[in-house]
């Protein structure tokens, strides 16, 4: 299945192509969301739609990095407008045979796969969605 491959720092991640609507450059500034959890970068205006953008690094609980995020991966989640802030997008690759990820499992991670000799973490769109909603519901 074809996946969009992107990076958070050096780490590579993949999302099924069918789950990604488009990739855009983040705006100069995001509108901050009052009382939102810290992982929520803010909202942006994408051709008239208000898209909530989440920093993937924080969503997955990764350590802080030095490189500023340069792309927003927009998920195709029906009427829910959700974007993931990532370091960069590499391209589209076919990813086969996803095996279970080692270590602690979160619903956002489907598993790992090999791609060109390197590992790539395959994310689960539904799980990501659930993880974002969980951020909001747990913060209270």
């Amino acid at each position, binding site marked *: 299945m074809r996946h969009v491959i992107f990076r958070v720092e050096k780490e590579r991640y993949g999302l099924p192509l069918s789950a990604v609507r488009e990739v855009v450059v983040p705006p100069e500034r995001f*509108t*901050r969301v009052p*009382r939102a959890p810290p992982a929520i970068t803010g*909202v942006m*205006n994408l051709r*008239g739609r208000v898209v*909530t953008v989440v920093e993937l690094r924080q969503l997955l609980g990764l350590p802080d990095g030095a490189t500023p995020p340069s792309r927003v991966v927009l998920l195709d989640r029906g009427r829910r407008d959700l974007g993931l802030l990532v370091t960069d997008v590499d391209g589209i690759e076919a990813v086969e045979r996803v095996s279970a990820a080692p270590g602690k499992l979160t619903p956002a991670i489907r598993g790992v796969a090999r791609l060109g000799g390197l590992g790539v973490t395959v994310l689960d769109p539904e799980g990501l969605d659930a993880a*974002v*909603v969980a951020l*909001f519901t747990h913060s209270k």
Partner: protein
Amino acid sequence: MTMDMSRYLGLFISEATEHLEALGRDLVQLEREGSSSSVDSMFRHAHSVKGMASSMGFEPIAIVAHRVEDLVDAVRQDRGRLDRDLVDLLLSASDTLLAQVRAVAEGRPPDDAAALLAQLGVRVTAMTGHAPTATRVAKVTVNKPEDPDGGGDSGSGPSGSGGAAPASGSGGAAPASGSSGSGGAASASGSSGNGGAAPASGSSGSGGAAPASGAGTDASGDGGAGSGGGTPSGTAAPSAPVTDSTPGGAREGDAPSGHGSQAAGLLDAPPRPTVTENGAGGVREVLGIGAPPSSGSGHVSPVTPPVLTEAQVADLGLALKAASGGVLPGEPAVEGRATQRWAVRLRISPTCQVPGVRAFLVHKRLTNLGTLVDLRPALEELKAGRIPDGYIQLEIETSVGEAGIQASLKNVAEVDVVSVKPAVAVVLPVVVPTTAAEGGRAAGDSSSRTVRVRTELLDYFLDTVGELMLATARLREVGKVLPETVRPVLDEGVYRLHTLVKDLHDKVMSARMTPLSLITDRLPRAARDIARRKEREVDLVITGAEIELDRAILDELSDPLLHLLRNCIDHGLESPEERITAKKGPRGRVLVAVKRARDRVIIELEDDGRGMNPAKLKAAAVARGLLPPEVATRLTDREAFMLSCLPGVSTAKDITDISGRGVGMDAVKRVVESVGGTLEIDSEPGRGTRFTLRLPLTVAVVHLLLVEVGDEVFGLPIAKVVGATEADGDALSRSRETALLPHGNSLLPVHALDTLVGVPTPGMRGVRPFVVMEGDSGRVALGVDRLLGQEEVVLKPLSRPLDLLPGLSGVTILGSGRPVFILDVPRLLSA
């Protein structure tokens, strides 16, 4: 082997729900007034639901509906049989039916409601003197319930998917299930042993037996009576060689067992003729099965199904195809060719220089073929060449069939025929007007000019138009930085765009307008239930329910209105004894009056009960620590009444299952305000209470006061803003931790907006602006950095996950392209 009925599922759900809600209303009305028109209309509703449910194969629903029909029929013959218990039973049956329909809508099998059925059965036996008859149900399966109309177009249905499975009913019940004429289809597909061949044998009046035909699924597109007849004839002729009276039988329409009739049944309110007991004869005739024409009782002995030869099966397949395609090979089976309705979609090539001319030509060609029923864009627009994206849609009633339509358009240059499909002929308005003359909804002129549209689609239109408005505003902003030389041209274009979009917005808004009766129609039933449980006597009077409101507001209002009604009956009205002691009539009165006042709709709910006690409310609020006692004493009575909207404040003596827990009124107030309305309460001890809801006609446009805090901009709804003032934040007096701002002759608690919304700012020192707003428990002052001015914006609802945050009521995009949140200050303060 079953057939796919999913295409009709959505229709079934909405129509059945409508019928059932109407049934409930009729019952309440009947009990009150005893008019014979309600009984007839109840019978029709029950009957329609039975027919639809059996067509769809939802046996549990069909059976309950059948019992209800039996009981209503008994009442129809003798009005004296209607007592309170029977009304209760029928109401609970209609509730059960609604629950069953909901279950189906959610993709679950409907509950079989055994206990209720037993009760109904006992009642039927008691009233009619004989046991209830069996209900016949078509054997169909509904696939993909979540996508009722997504399914393939014509062609997916017919070939070999007829659902014939002959049910071996016994006793009084004739074997009914499924597949009249097209039972043959099942045999073509080699379904179970019996070779399909229409064993629907005399199934006495089983409406359900009629439809299950694959061919019908397609033919249903045309739905017209003529072709409805055509279908069974097409299929029945080969499948039942025994008969020669087939076409006649089908034509007579006594048993239009073709799917066309089923479609009509689903689409149209009046009962189908099929389902009557004497329809049996017709069915038998169509099928050509030599069963004795019994007198239409349920007692028909099963008949041996005719056996088909392979050749016949092949023929049948062909005939089915032909019937569905509307192009019959060779001689048409029925005299003449039925006029059929087709939905045609065309596209004028984008490179076309003269779209208006081409479109006009198309129009002319097609009018030669038959009657153009619906043309979009309208002819005037077409002639003027105003064809969005080049697409033209129309419906035409013609006898030339698809091939004829294609042929006539073949040599029109620069026009592509995108699709030609059988169209559903009977269409209904978005909302069924439910005036007193319910039955007056004739399939007249108006109904043929309206379509039923899913509300999500309307929402989508509104969203998109809203985005168009924002995009236009953005363009205008961009224009401001252009050099003077090019600017006028752009400005002119933007101006024109703005006018068009504004116009479109108005049209979309008017398409969303829905009469309040959609929700007030439920109130009489609710009032009856509450009154009965609380042993109150109540007359509910509703006026002005025909006034229209935006659908989105209406949807939100349903629960609040119900809650207010409960409040009126449960707390407002006294028991009959108390009322007599108070020198009032034993029956309480609740008035729901809807009025239109300029751009607002006012809904008043008024009871003539005991009224509210402001002192008690103040005491309750103080006791809960929601209000300092000194503030409470200063409140006017009106303000005190509003205290009942604070969470947890209730003066009800006893907490009941209906109300009095103090959770509801705050929700009512919140909902009303979230749609941009206001709630007022007025009450006079001993005389009654009046709730007044002032609502905007539409939700889409709101007036905002834009304020800046740090780098962020927020919108405050002007409706809640009392005023603004400047003061030195450091010089304000304080009470405990809270700063107090003098305003008028009172001191208002001050909140810094930056800390409220969690946006850190350097912290403004010295003189800063304060916005004074209405809060839940009195006014508050919000400290902001800057006032940016007022703006009228298109409100967008918050999508997940933003809707999970407290304190936000929506979001909008300013002309600069910047998204801005609209704050719900009371919730921001309380959360």
